[in-house]
């Protein structure tokens, strides 16, 4: 990864254009521990298997917001962060330890608002079985 991400020009972007997907390493317990500390989400259900089982889960599972951070990485691989206007998601299924998540996205719309040229994106996380775990959207400003 280089520091400089060069955004495409508004006129060069077409509805349906895909963003280059990112395939992530399998989710590990170590990563969940790091995210617990890094995000300040200390819910033990993501790091303490005894606690997770007590509440009816077979194992710990990933923070939804960890996967949303992957959506953020995808969008900031497409445009510099200073051009990101919105990022949102629904968490549609649980991400388990060992899951291999692919983040992908495509252009769904182009418009102008508040004096800016905006591009709407559909972004999502999909697991190794092809099931969407996050269904999100983003808006970026292009020149």
């Amino acid at each position, binding site marked *: *990864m*280089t*520091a*400089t*991400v060069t955004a495409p020009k508004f006129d060069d972007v077409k509805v349906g254009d895909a963003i280059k997907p990112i395939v*992530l*390493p399998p989710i590990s317990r170590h*990563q969940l521990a*790091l*995210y617990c*500390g*890094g*995000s*300040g*989400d*200390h*819910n*033990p*259900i993501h790091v303490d298997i005894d*606690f*997770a089982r*007590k*509440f*009816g889960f077979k194992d710990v599972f990933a*923070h*939804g*917001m*960890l996967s*949303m*951070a*992957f*959506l*953020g*990485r995808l*969008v*900031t691989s497409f445009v*510099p*962060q*200073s051009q*990101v*206007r*919105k*990022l*949102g*998601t*629904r*968490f549609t299924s649980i991400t388990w330890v060992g899951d291999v998540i692919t983040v992908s996205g495509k252009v769904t719309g182009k418009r102008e608002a508040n004096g800016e040229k905006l591009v709407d994106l559909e972004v999502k996380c999909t697991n190794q079985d092809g099931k969407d775990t996050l269904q999100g959207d983003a808006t970026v400003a292009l020149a």
Partner: protein
Amino acid sequence: MQLDKGLIGHKFNAFTTTVEAGKIRLFCKAIGEDNPIYVDEEAAKKAGYRAIPAPPTFLTAVTNDDPDKGGLLRLLNVDIGLILHGEQHYEYLAPVHVGDRITCQQQVVDIYDKKGGALWFVVSETELKDQSGKPVAKAKGITVVRNPDAAKK
């Protein structure tokens, strides 16, 4: 279990926290983000930022830095093991950088149930302002509460 819809409109105490470089570094390590702008001030400045920027979803670490952490669950009287994250949305109004002091004000905006009360949804919105009082972001989250009584029926 039934949540109190009378809590709609409840405003939590605002709090202020400083965006720290070390915390962004740990956050980036956790999410696998390796763009040097998030760890190296020179790289950030070369890329046009006035300081190291907070990654888009680092705002969750900002809002989680509440000294009254867990306030929503205490308000609802819900055990943390019963919640799931339903949705999260961020609107970015101005950049957030290392050194910024961000004030967060969270409010409950809706509470409703689905599946005959088996699942409850609590919608909250948080306004984030910087040290000059300028709004920098709006966050909207939906917390899903699993009704432990529903499974017993």
